[in-house]
């Protein structure tokens, strides 16, 4: 085993050498986050270089196996990489649903051929993925989805519509839940398909949100031909993959509850904005609410740490993702509410195209406890699966 301290020193030196200075600044706008893919326009040469250099080492997906182009790092090494990146405020080289969501499902359910085909592209950021789950009539009741994939011999013909497809208008490929058995009980007739968003019959339309941004789309499939080799896992067993993937999504969204690396504690922000009286924040009521929040925030961060440590020691409960998703998103909403209170009327301005204001972040945060399974769905999961409460 490589000595961890050596690894840290090497990593530090490599990052110093290879992370361009402009990639060491906090993210200000959407353009600062690189999503890759066929149509990505790099903000500048540094962004491209940073992605290429990190992808070259497999460090866009540090813990994935090297045989598919991943970093092959151990958990401890990956943590060190993360710490060293945080130390110099290095940006994540690639934001990717391929890495955060699809990849883990491919490793578990896809054929070797599919893994060889898709995983290296994900690591290099060559394909931008979107997720085709929710439908206009299948939100919290996801398994009632109606998008059909009919068997036409050498291909499936997909017809239906999806909603809340994140960045569908910018994505190259979609991983999509479709109904392949129309008679079976709802959970048992679903399959998991991958297809190119450039296929004839696919159309997308962005949905404008209360925050003014349009990260989600309506996506329509009108007789889209999908090669049969693009089916992942067994026919009609797609719900298992969907559930597995949702677990990863929940963990990702739950991470929103953690304060961003390098961001100031709320109490500090409040003191700068409001000032102190007798060494305490000048607004006593707000101070009490901030303390209450920061206590929860700290206990939550420790819980994330504990879940990871337990998993490492093989003691995981497996159901923790619902707890983290629920609590993390509610905390992020609480943080945004407090930031609005700290800012007062000064927090109300609406930004232009190149600037997202506090008020817009606040509005966007409201979606955290809806997307990826609403808080109420998480409570259902906890009550039934963890606590074993009767139906």
């Amino acid at each position, binding site marked *: 085993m490589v000595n961890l301290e050596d690894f840290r020193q090497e990593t530090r030196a490599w990052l110093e050498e290879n992370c361009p200075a402009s990639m060491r600044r906090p993210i200000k706008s959407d353009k600062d986050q690189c999503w890759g893919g066929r149509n990505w326009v790099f903000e500048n040469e540094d962004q491209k270089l940073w992605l290429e250099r990190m992808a070259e080492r497999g460090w866009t997906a540090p813990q994935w196996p090297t045989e598919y182009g991943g970093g092959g790092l151990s958990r401890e090494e990956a943590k060190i990489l993360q710490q060293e990146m945080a130390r110099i405020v290095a940006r994540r080289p690639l934001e990717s649903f391929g890495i955060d969501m699809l990849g883990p499902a491919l490793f578990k359910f896809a054929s070797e051929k599919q893994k060889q085909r898709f995983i290296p592209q994900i690591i290099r950021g060559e394909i931008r993925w979107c997720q085709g789950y929710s439908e206009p009539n299948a939100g919290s009741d996801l398994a009632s989805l109606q998008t059909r994939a009919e068997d036409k011999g050498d291909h499936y013909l997909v017809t239906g519509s999806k909603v809340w497809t994140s960045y569908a208008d910018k994505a190259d490929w979609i991983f999509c839940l479709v109904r392949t058995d129309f008679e079976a009980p709802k959970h048992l007739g679903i399959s998991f398909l991958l297809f190119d968003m450039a296929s004839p019959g696919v159309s997308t339309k962005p949905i404008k949100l209360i925050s003014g941004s349009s990260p989600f789309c309506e996506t329509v499939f009108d007789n889209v031909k999908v090669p049969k080799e693009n089916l992942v896992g067994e026919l009609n067993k797609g719900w298992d993959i969907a559930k597995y993937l949702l677990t990863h999504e929940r963990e990702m969204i739950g991470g929103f509850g953690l304060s961003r690396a390098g961001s100031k504690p709320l*109490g500090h922000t*409040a003191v700068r904005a409001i000032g102190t009286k007798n060494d305490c*924040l000048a607004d006593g009521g707000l101070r009490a609410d901030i303390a209450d929040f920061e*206590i929860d925030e700290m206990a939550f961060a420790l*819980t994330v740490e504990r879940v990871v440590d337990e998993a490492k020691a093989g003691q995981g409960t497996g159901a923790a993702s619902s707890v983290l998703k629920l609590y993390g998103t509610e905390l992020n909403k609480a943080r945004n509410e407090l930031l609005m209170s700290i800012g007062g009327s000064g927090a109300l301005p609406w930004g232009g195209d190149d600037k997202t204001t506090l008020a817009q972040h606040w509005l966007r945060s409201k979606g955290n406890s809806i997307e990826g399974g609403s808080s109420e769905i998480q409570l259902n999961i906890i*009550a*039934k699966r963890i606590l074993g409460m009767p139906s």
Partner: protein
Amino acid sequence: MALILSDEQQMLHDSAKSFIQERSPVSALRELRDRGEEWSAELWAGMAEMGWTGITVPEEYGGLEFGHVGAGLVLEECGRTLASSPLLSSSFVCAALISALGNERQKETLLPAIASGETILTLALSENDRFDPLAVATTAVRDTDGYVLDGRKMHVLDGGVASKLIVVARTGGEPGDNSDLTLFIVECDDDAIQVARKLNVDSRQVADVRFEAARVDSDALLGEPGAAWQQLERALDIGAVLSAAELLGLAQEAFERTLDYLKDRKQFGVPVGSFQALQHRAAQLFCELELCKSAVLKALQAIDEDQPERSRLASMAKAKMAKTAKLAVNEAVQMHGGVGMTDEYDIGFFMKRAAAACQEYGDFYYHADRFARLGKY
């Protein structure tokens, strides 16, 4: 350090659970209460035999030196059955003060006696109804070869069973100052002090103690005069986190009993636990308890590792735990419905003990305020 238990800690946790479940179930508390007694000397002897009375005492003074994570695990199990003992006051808080401040003579005589359970000490600090450790007004005035104490202490935990007090007094300054605080070890049966016992809602006794021109010798001093605060603050952090550990056990047990009740109790022809209104509240409480587990374990580790963040973590843990314990016992009684209000059902005992334990070493408001102060706001 990873936020999991070591194998040794896990073993201690398991043995504490089986010992307490067998020797001090909730029914033991009911029997003590009905007999008008506060504690069981027999249980105490058993705890001493298990080594718990010396769990944080250094090995060279007859203890196990097993650390505060271990002490927390024991108290968590005591919390589950509401087992009453002076472990926290004597074996953990007073032992910490004597280990840190005692001279060799004091350590040699007192620590082995604490570790064996033979001598019980408690801290006489509070002078107010609300926890405020710097508000000490009791004075200690230098006399020819000793000190004269004047003042009044309130809510002294285990005041009914302790034979010695560690008294916090002021050798100068004003209430509110953290300088000039001095500790004295005083015998409870000293004629110069009056100890008045009071029965609390949780069936435990606390004491009010009066010092009227009470003379103590210089060798009663624990540590240097006027310099107690740093170690006293540490001991109070230990008290706060360990009281949180007790509440963690209490809240989990109240929650689990309630969950069983919800699965069992039928109304409208179905278990009431099938109603979403109750399921969501139970799930929410489960999440809060998960956060508490992490908070308490981290704060305990911070004491053992002497981390600079110790005080802030201690306040975080006690604040979070006190708030959650209150939620847990309130939900427990409400979800039990009418029987939750009866003396016959045990669930009410959990609410009563939680009310007292939340106050011990500072309640939610005290620790939330301290947490904010330590966070510079």
